[in-house]
């Protein structure tokens, strides 16, 4: 028997869909078996939890930060620039939103202007954080994986210093969190068909997805990104500026993560809390979201929903069967491993010869 492996130059869309669905299906199947063997959870309970995850309104709550960060990652990933600093960029947005809301916001400004201003500031904060890594890569060719990862720890440290130190709220009984931000700056949920939905951020997600989709598929800049990601030599030979691609994709990426951070503060927590509780790893899970969508912004909404549903399922299982956070990690980890493994079949065609 001989395995012949050939590189694919053309990747059919249906293959991408089949492989993604297969990865998700296999993850669920394997998780089901593991949970049955390890914790004696009956398969029907498991299936019920998955079903609940898919329809639970709380799925929408996770979908928002995951999809925003995931959307941001589509651009740099398409260019082959591995920004894994969404977590830190999200937190920068959260920190700046809190700072402005608590310390600079003049109370007589109309929230119709105030909230957009806050969102813009958070976008800029996230973008600025990503820019540090982008600049270092563009100017000194420093590996962006390392710099974005290390920046995450710097921002986490900074955030925790603030909530434990100078920003600790006077009304919080000594807990490590800031005061509640003025209520006119809260992003409120709207009830539609009995489900409470954060319309502001959902609209931002839809608009960004459409905009990114347009940029990637119909603009010269999107084309530059695609070429740079597929063949750097071709990009350089034809006069595409690598610096421009690196800086701009990182800026947009960081900005969208920053928006997610503002969303967490303004819509969910209404204050800055310990940073590991602001972003429960959304920035990292967003890597999976972007990857599952194959860097297609419209598909990112779907993959964001799927990953959010898996998180909900994990939490349902925690309540249902008394499992720990490990259940969520099992899904996310399993999906990451399988999605990357099956990606091999997308890049290469494998033929078995007897």
């Amino acid at each position, binding site marked *: 028997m001989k395995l012949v492996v050939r590189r694919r130059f053309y990747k059919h869309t249906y293959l991408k869909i089949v492989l993604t669905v297969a990865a998700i299906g296999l993850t669920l199947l394997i998780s089901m078996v593991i949970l049955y063997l390890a914790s004696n959870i009956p398969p029907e309970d498991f299936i019920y939890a998955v079903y609940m995850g898919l329809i639970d309104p709380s799925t929408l709550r996770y979908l928002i930060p995951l999809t925003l960060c995931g959307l941001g990652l589509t651009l740099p990933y398409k260019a082959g620039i591995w920004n894994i600093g969404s977590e830190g960029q999200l937190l920068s947005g959260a920190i700046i939103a809190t700072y402005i809301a608590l310390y600079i916001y003049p109370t007589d400004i109309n929230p119709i202007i105030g909230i957009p201003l806050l969102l813009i500031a958070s976008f800029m904060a996230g973008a600025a954080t990503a820019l540090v890594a982008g600049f270092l890569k563009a100017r000194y060719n420093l590996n962006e994986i390392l710099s974005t990862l290390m920046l995450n720890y710097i921002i986490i440290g900074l955030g925790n210093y603030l909530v434990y130190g100078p920003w600790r709220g006077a009304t919080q009984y000594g807990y490590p969190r800031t005061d509640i931000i003025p209520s006119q700056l809260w992003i409120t949920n709207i009830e539609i068909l009995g489900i409470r939905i954060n319309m502001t951020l959902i609209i931002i997600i839809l608009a960004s997805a459409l905009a990114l989709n347009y940029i990637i598929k119909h603009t010269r800049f999107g084309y530059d990104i695609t070429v740079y990601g597929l*063949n750097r*030599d*071709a990009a350089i030979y034809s006069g595409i500026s690598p610096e421009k691609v690196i800086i701009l994709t990182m800026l947009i990426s960081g900005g969208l993560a920053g928006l997610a951070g503002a969303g967490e503060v303004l819509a969910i927590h209404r204050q800055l809390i310990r940073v590991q509780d602001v972003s429960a790893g959304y920035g990292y899970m967003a890597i999976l979201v972007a990857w599952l969508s194959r860097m297609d912004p419209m598909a990112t909404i779907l993959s964001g929903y799927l990953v959010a549903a898996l998180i909900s399922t994990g939490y349902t299982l925690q309540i249902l069967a008394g499992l720990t956070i490990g259940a969520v990690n099992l899904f996310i980890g399993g999906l990451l491993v399988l999605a990357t493994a099956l990606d091999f079949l997308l890049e290469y065609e494998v033929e078995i010869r007897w």
Partner: protein
Amino acid sequence: MFRNREVIGLVGSTPTQLFINGLSKRFGPIHALKNVSIEFRGGEIHIILGENGAGKTTLAKILSGIYRLDEGEITINGTPVKIRNTKDALRNGIAIVSQYPKLIEEMTVAENLLIALDYYGPLTTPRSVIERAVELADKYGLHIDMDKYIYSLSFSERQRVEILKALLLNPSVLILDEPTTLLTPNEKRGLYRFIEMLKQEGKIVIVITHKIDEALEIGDRITILRDGKVIVSLPKEKLTKDMIIKYMFSDGAEENKYNQIFIRRDASNRNAVLVVEGVDVIDDYGYIILKNVNLKVFEGEIVGVAGIAGTGLKELGESIYGLRKIARGQIVINGRSVSYMKREEIANNVGFIPDNIVKTLVLELEVEKNFRLKKSLWSITLDAMERYINKFRIKAESPNQNTGTLSGGNLQKLVVSREVALKPKLLIATNPTKALDHISINVIHGIFREYASNGGAVLILSEDIDEVLRISDRIYVISNNTIKPVDSNKDARKLMMELLT
């Protein structure tokens, strides 16, 4: 395997014999070597001579275990041996000094040499290996400071380290791949002395080169390869320079490849589009590969530069296109210095066909998308694009076809058509018709001609002498690390051949 280093070496003992018999090697559809049989004898300097692509380096890589042979047999002292990897080769006493030293820049000479430790037993101390290296260096006149870092060394010093690395393994067969390409005359003499010493010890020395003079100067026996086949394998005394030239380059048979001959024109009273003044060109390793290059291309003319691969042809093109820093001098296109131009500006004003066209294509994207790669072609209409595709006879079903499915020749034509469609002031083409059939060559040459008649300036950098002879108004040849003009009216072909080799 080398538990006892005395076992491997045959220092000063009986001469070794190395036979290769019926050796063949294919890379996909390309026959790199076809049924090659050569006999190497101890105490003899055996030159493998041939043009680029003749299969010299493939042969060396098979003997040293870097490539595996497809067919054939290798026999050492009468015993057939299997060489499946570099370890097998070293076990059989075959070591190679490659053209570009493969050393670790951030380590000292001594640390680099300790790689040999693997092949001595576990009881050998690093110190004893270094002592042996110093001993060898003294013996062969390869003096080098063991504590210097590799990055601080010159090319010839690096080569000495590479040679010492090979000698530490006590080989009975030493292969040197193009060893003198980057050496000064003085350094060359040193290397020749060293090769002579190895010969006196009865070792087999195989020197791979494309330089005829060098072959005649140091060789005892010369094997000429062409298109992967052995043409002759004779003692030096039986060969003359003229014979070698005839054997190395397919004599005349190929001239028919080009059935149109163009009339040369004089364009020197027009404006110069490209001016290259006193430029030193640097190769990938940071060495100066071409010194003091002076070259002008005027409006409405085709200038051809002929050169053998690996002598700076590709690097010259890349330097003019601004992809490569130059060590000295200046390059001016349309009155503007390239070093002050943005890459995008150069890309959109200069057509460039690189040696490796895949570097300017994105095989995963459609033909149409590849055509739009340069910004000034971004909004070219599909009709205009199809006109180019038809004019160049590119076999593509539609502009939406995936580029990766086109054949090599069609990819080549796609790049040429795109760069011509750009309507640049200057068109630089490196081996523009490599891998093309006769009809396509004629089409492309015709288009270059048409382009020049419309006032464009074309610079052809080609390894194909006949191509340069045929379409150039003026000719240069890369010779001795610089470029020299050749009077195209005299017996240019013979002149070029002599300068090239």
